[in-house]
Structure formats: structure tokens, C-alpha cells
């Protein structure tokens, strides 16, 4: 059975009257987590921009709104979602229309996360329906708000397991008119992470730092992005190029090519259409080279200055076992049903944190009807 409420009240009624579990679905483009069995509950009926004030850098959006629609509205005012949400369709082989609620529920960010912050950092407010059918709001639409607990953060990245989002408020930022990319050729992973650290620790505001061990021409390439007013971008590109003058450095100034290159990194293009499981590992950047060695992956991609490793491994491989005590936080982003049944999708938490997580879930969804088991170990 499929349900697609048109209003928050209707959604609340459906959840209150639940006779079994729901599988919450925005655009259906992010098939991540343990497989969920339940009646499909679609959020696409809750759509539209409620309020957009470019002068206040805020937008309020119904959760089921297509992401593209919101991005187009921002673009028209020269603004954007600064956290650069990735599009999972290519990597996961899904179709459909990504929604704003889906982005928030999965806390989806992109390469700019390393400088600007994650989706959660731009979340100002939420409205949601909890597992009992109760409508709850938290936060609001102003940039600074410490009135009560920050449930906005808690809801962001909770994958619909604490409540179904109905409306979200986001902080947006101006979209700079200019961008450039510094490309450094043929670095080893260790040297690339070192170079990215050096760039990110410079005063030149690098908004993207990625390393591709096998670039389009078959060789390693390290990418550093800068954005801003034209004069400032030129200046910083020069300064950064000078910082790495002992390497083979190129500077790409064509804005369209820069955008294309970073969309390629953002959407993990090298692993699209491949066979095998895809893991996402969050780590301390300087640990990345050692972790990459241990992973012994078929393909690798490093983002966030090394703090994010994408790894393609043969189906069913336990990446965490390979990483061992060195750690990192591994998420199985793309896995067959068998892999996802056999391995925890999300990094298992130590017992006291798992108890807190379980306690919160039991309070927000006491009957266990919202995406039950999706985030379980």
C-alpha cells in the first residue's frame, strides 16, 4: 500500500493510526541503510517553498519539495545551499527526484563540507511528525537560536527514524561569481593528504580539497577549489599555486569546467556503474593514507582533505575488519541486500552511546513504526 499525504495534519493522522511499520520515502534516490519492510509513506505531497528571504539568507521549504526546485529558486537570487548536497542517483543506480527532506534526513553534504559545514550546520528549524503522530517543531527561521534543545541537529541525519520531516528552514549563502581549481599532478596519497592539509591550513579559503588516485587521464590528481569575487579568486589561485611551486601545478579558471570537476567528485563518479560495495569512511585526515593502505580497495577517492574516503570493495567485504583498530567511521553506502544484511550499514556505536541512541528512538517512536531497523547495527 502507498500513502502520499498532502498536508502535515493528514500525515499526522496516518501515523497516529498506524497498524504497522512505514517505509518513509522522499524521492527514493537514497536506498541506504538496512532494508526496511513496511507500507510506503511518501512525502512528495508536502511540497513548495513556504518562505524565501534572500536578504536574510533564509529559506523555509516543505520537506517533500524537489531539491532542484529549491536550488533553482536560490540560483535566481544568486544564492545556493552552501553544503553542496551530493546526488546519489549515479552511485546507487536509482532514479527519481531527490527531495529537500531526503537531503536533511540523510545529512547529505558534498566537497564544500570541509570549509562551509555540513547540511546539519545550515539547518535552522524543523517541523516533523513523531512516531505517535504528534506534530513537533524545533528551532525556527533565524540564524542564531539557542531557545531550548537543538532537536534540529538530532533530526538531521536521523533517516526518518525519529519523525517524518514536514518542513525545514535552511540558512543559504551567496553564490560567488567566480571559481578556480588548482590541480597538482602525480602525488602519492600520503603527499596528497599533506598538500591538502597545507592548503586547508592556509589563509586562502579553500572550499574543496580532493585527491583522485586515478584521474581521467589515468594519473593521480589533487584538486583544490577556491571561490569568491573574481579579483580575490585570481589572487588566491596565484598564492596557492606558489605554495606548491615545487610540484607540477595547473590552474583551471573556466567556471563551467571547475563546476563539472567538483560535481564529479561530489557524486563519486569513478564508482558509478561499477560492481561491488561502496563504503564511505570518515576519519582524521592524516590517518587517510594508512587507512587506504589497509582497505586495499579496488578504487579510492579522497575528499575533505582526506577526511572522507570513498572505497570500492568486492561485494560482502567487511571494510571495518580491514581498517582494524586504526578506526575511522565506516558506512556501507552501496551494498547488495546480502551485504547489508550481513554487515552493519552504519558504524556500530560503543555501548553507552548505543543506549542513548536507542533511548531517544524509543521516546520519539515508541511503537517502532518509522523506518524500523534502518539504522540498526
Amino acid at each position, binding site marked *: 500500500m502507498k500513502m502520499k499525504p498532502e498536508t502535515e495534519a493528514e500525515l499526522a493522522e496516518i501515523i497516529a493510526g498506524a497498524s504497522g511499520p512505514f517505509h518513509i520515502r522522499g524521492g527514493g534516490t537514497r536506498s541506504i541503510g538496512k532494508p526496511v519492510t513496511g507500507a510506503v509513506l511518501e512525502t512528495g505531497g508536502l511540497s513548495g517553498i513556504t518562505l524565501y528571504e534572500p536578504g536574510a539568507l533564509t529559506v523555509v521549504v516543505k520537506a517533500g519539495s524537489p531539491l532542484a526546485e529549491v536550488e533553482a529558486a536560490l540560483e535566481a537570487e544568486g544564492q545556493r545551499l552552501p553544503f553542496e548536497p551530493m546526488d546519489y542517483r549515479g552511485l546507487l543506480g536509482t532514479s527519481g527526484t531527490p527531495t529537500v527532506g531526503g537531503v536533511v534526513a540523510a545529512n547529505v*553534504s558534498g566537497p564544500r563540507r570541509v570549509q562551509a559545514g555540513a547540511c546539519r550546520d545550515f539547518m535552522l528549524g524543523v517541523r516533523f511528525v513523531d512516531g505517535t503522530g504528534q506534530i513537533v517543531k524545533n528551532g525556527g*527561521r533565524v540564524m542564531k537560536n539557542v531557545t531550548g534543545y537543538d532537536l534540529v541537529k*538530532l533530526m538531521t541525519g536521523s533517516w526518518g527514524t525519529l519523525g517524518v520531516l514536514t518542513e525545514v528552514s535552511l540558512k543559504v549563502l551567496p553564490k560567488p561569481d567566480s571559481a578556480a581549481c588548482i590541480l597538482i599532478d602525480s602525488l602519492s596519497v600520503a603527499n596528497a593528504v599533506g598538500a591538502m*592539509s597545507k592548503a586547508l591550513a592556509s589563509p586562502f579559503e579553500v572550499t574543496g580539497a580532493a585527491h583522485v588516485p586515478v584521474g581521467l587521464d589515468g594519473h593521480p590528481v589533487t584538486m583544490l577549489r577556491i571561490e569568491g*569575487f573574481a*579579483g580575490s579568486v585570481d589572487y588566491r589561485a596565484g598564492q596557492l599555486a606558489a605554495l606548491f611551486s615545487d610540484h607540477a601545478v595547473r590552474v583551471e579558471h573556466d567556471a563551467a569546467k571547475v563546476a563539472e570537476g567538483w560535481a564529479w567528485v561530489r557524486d563519486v563518479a569513478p564508482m558509478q556503474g561499477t560492481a561491488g560495495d561502496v563504503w564511505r569512511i570518515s576519519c582524521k585526515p592524516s590517518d587517510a593514507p594508512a587507512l587506504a593502505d589497509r582497505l586495499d580497495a579496488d578504487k579510492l577517492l579522497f575528499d575533505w582533505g582526506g577526511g572522507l574516503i570513498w572505497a570500492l570493495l568486492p561485494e560482502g567485504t567487511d571494510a571495518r575488519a580491514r581498517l582494524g583498530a586504526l578506526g575511522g567511521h565506516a558506512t556501507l553506502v552501496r551494498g547488495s541486500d546480502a551485504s547489508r544484511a550481513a554487515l552493519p550499514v552504519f558504524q556500530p556505536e560503543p555501548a553507552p552511546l548505543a543506549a542513548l541512541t536507542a533511548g531517544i528512538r524509543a521516546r520519539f517512536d515508541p511503537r517502532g513504526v518509522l523506518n524500523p531497523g534502518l539504522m540498526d547495527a
Partner: protein
Amino acid sequence: MQMPKPDASILARKARIVERLRKVLPADAVIDDEAETRAYECDALTAYRCPPLAVVLPSTTEEVSKVLRVCWEEGVPVVPRGSGTSLAGGALPTADSVILGVARMNEVLETDYDNRFIRVQTGRTNLSVTGAVEEHDFFYAPDPSSQLACAIAGNIAMNSGGAHCLKYGVTTNNLLGVTMVQMDGTVVEIGGAHLDSGGLDLLGVICGSEGQLGVVTEATLRILRKPEGARPVLMGFDSNEVAGACVSDIIKAGVLPVAIEFMDRPCIEATEAFAKAGYPMCEALLIVEVEGSPAEIDEQLGLILQIARRHNPVELREAKDADEAGRIWLGRKSAFGAMGQINDYMCLDGTIPVSELPYVLKRIGEMSKEYGLDVANVFHAGDGNMHPLILFDANKPGDLERCEALGADILRLCVEVGGCLTGEHGVGIEKRDLMVDQYAPADLEAQMAVKDVFDPKWLLNPAKVFPLAASESRRSIALAAE
């Protein structure tokens, strides 16, 4: 402002409780002498005072864990305290509570420039975090005005902001991980040197929970490389509306200044009399600061000044050097001191959508007349975080009550126009009873449910944040007192 009645059974057990605390802490880390506990009777909201049962000053996470375990077993409420600079009464004790001060825990545990973080004990002051990394040209971004004194523990508890958060965000955006002790003594590690690990964002809900979910003893903080330079520009306008429109136009033009500060006429007059910064006498004054290399600053300021000129400013002053920059900031930085010279004052921090600025300032002016109390406005205009300062005379009977009533009306106005009660100071006791104006019962219930999970006995800072009536059934202290 009401506080719950102290639990007589706890007061009666004072000797035993203190003895148990002495067993787990060094002798000089437990204070129970009434002459000495008085030093902890209030925070920066000095209108309310109450000496605690005892004060403990642990030096390590392990000691904090032992102290909390004792209090948990004894059923004693614990009020965590950083440097005691809360303007909201966040560290106000009750007579039956133990103050847990983290002031002795001020070590830097690790600095890592390659991975751009610092790990500190949370008793360390905000400014001294930057102090620990500035020789490498790094800094810690959140800069509350009390940064010389306030502790990271309090910054995390209140999710503190500052003047530069338009660009750098507030505490929660710069906090990577914590070591936290739960009320039963359990020590947990959340987050760390990595980003966004998946799983529920417990760190996100801990930051800003006003010491009600656990005691944060160590923090991993993001540090940033200092910009090459910064330069402010000062603009005077003949109405609040025009100044507000100018702020909005600057933001819409795609410039992101690090700070946009706003002062109204009463505030300009007071600070000018006090600090003599040479400000123009006008209705509204903006200080806009941008960062970068000299050329980048010129590029941004060029655009900002062009926008400002379209709004017919009565004054435009660009800092030519560090000295002039200092003079532009001088008045703003002494605004609170200047107000203190005139009278006692109460500082609010409601936040509003920037578009509502002119209307809200007009209404505050009207309310100020109705109540017969002067209000000066100084605030972070870029993010709508207002700081109305209500002047009153604490020695005049009834003045404090009138001041509080006016403050409550101003905060309700902030909520009415789509804003909130507090942008960076926290709820504490000060705005506790106004929470019902912003949140429906179900909204508060969801927040209190989180506390139920972290602190089932409701022993951590229990009489704060939520209206007493709303939290009553949950507070064991209230139950025991019945």
C-alpha cells in the same frame, strides 16, 4: 523568578554528602563552608542568588565521574558551572544542589595543525583557546563578548555565538567532539577529529543543552587559519529603517562580511559620552567588517560602500590603518560598559528575521515609553540577534519587576515576528517561563524526552530551560519535596 523549594532531606544529609565527596576528591576541591560557597551563589544574572549546598572543583574527567556518581547515588541535584558568566542564570544554584565547577580543568590536551583541531579541558577560557594556537596564526572562531572570562564548558552548554558568526557560525558549528560524563558517572566520547560519522547527531543535541544532559569535560574544537587581514567601515544613517535596508542589500549583493553590528541613537549617545570614539550623532550606525588580503578587502569594501551610498548615509568612515580600525570598534566594544555607567541594565538577546528589524525597533521604542524605562539597542544585524539593553535602577522598588515585564514583552515580540527568545545567551532561568510563548506543549515534551534519556532522575541543572510547571512531574527534587 521562582525556584523549586529545596529538598529538606538533602539539606539534612549535608554532612554525609560532603564527606562522601571528600573521599573522591582532593581536600581543597570540596567547599562547604558557607562563607566560601557564597562566592558561587550567582552567575552574571546577579539579581538572583542562592548559595549551594557545596561546591566541588574537580581536575580530571575521572574526578568528575566520581563526583557525579556520588551525587547520583545520593539523589543530589548538580549545577555545572564554567566561569559563571551566564547572563541567563544558567549556573544559578539551589540550596540543595552541588555546584560542579570546571575552572581547574583548563589544560590544552592536544593541538593538531595538520588536521586543524585543538583538544582542551573545558574549563579553559574561550580567548585562551585562541591564545594557545595564535603563534601558528590559527584561531578559534566563536567570540562571545565575555570571551576573556567565559569557559568553553559554558560556550558548549549555551551554544555561544559572538560578533563574527555570520561567517564562522556559532559553537555548534565549530565543535567536533566531546568527552562527557553522564549523571551516573558513565564517561562517553562523542565525535572527535573526524566529521559527520553517521548515527544520530548526539553531539548536536548536547551542544546548547545548558548542562542538563551531562558534564562536558573535554572538547575537540575546530581551529582556523587567521585571515590575512580585516578592516571595518562605519556608516551612519538617519533612520533605523534605512540602516536595516542597507544591511539587507549588502547581504543580497553577495558579500559576506564577517560582522555587521548595529547601534541605535540611545546607544550611540551613551557610548560616545563614555568612550569618546568620535561616532557621528545619528539615528543608526552600522559597523561592517570584511576580511582577506588588502586587495580583497578593497574589492569587498568597494561594493559595500557603493551600496551604502545608495542609502544616503550621513557618515561613511573607512579605516585607513589599525589605529582607525580600533577607533571604529572602540565604541561598540564599550557599549555594555557605557550602559553600566548610566544605570543598572538588563541585556536581552532575542533574535528576529532581519527583514523585521525596522518594525521591531519601532515597537521597542513605543514599549519603552509605555513602561517608562529607557532601552538602547546594540546588536549583530547580519544575523538578526538583537541585544536590547533595558536601563533600570535596582535600588528603586518595583523597577526590576517592571524591567523584567518589559523584557518579557520585547521577547514575545521577537517570537511574534518569527524570531526566538534567545540567540546566544541561553534560556537558563531568565527565559524559562517564556518558553510556552515559543513552543507548544508537544514541542517542549519532545525536548524533555531527550533529557529523560540522558538524565532519567532529572538531577542535572533541573530547574532551568523548561517552565517549572512543565518539568515538575519529572524533577525528582520536586517529587521529594512534596
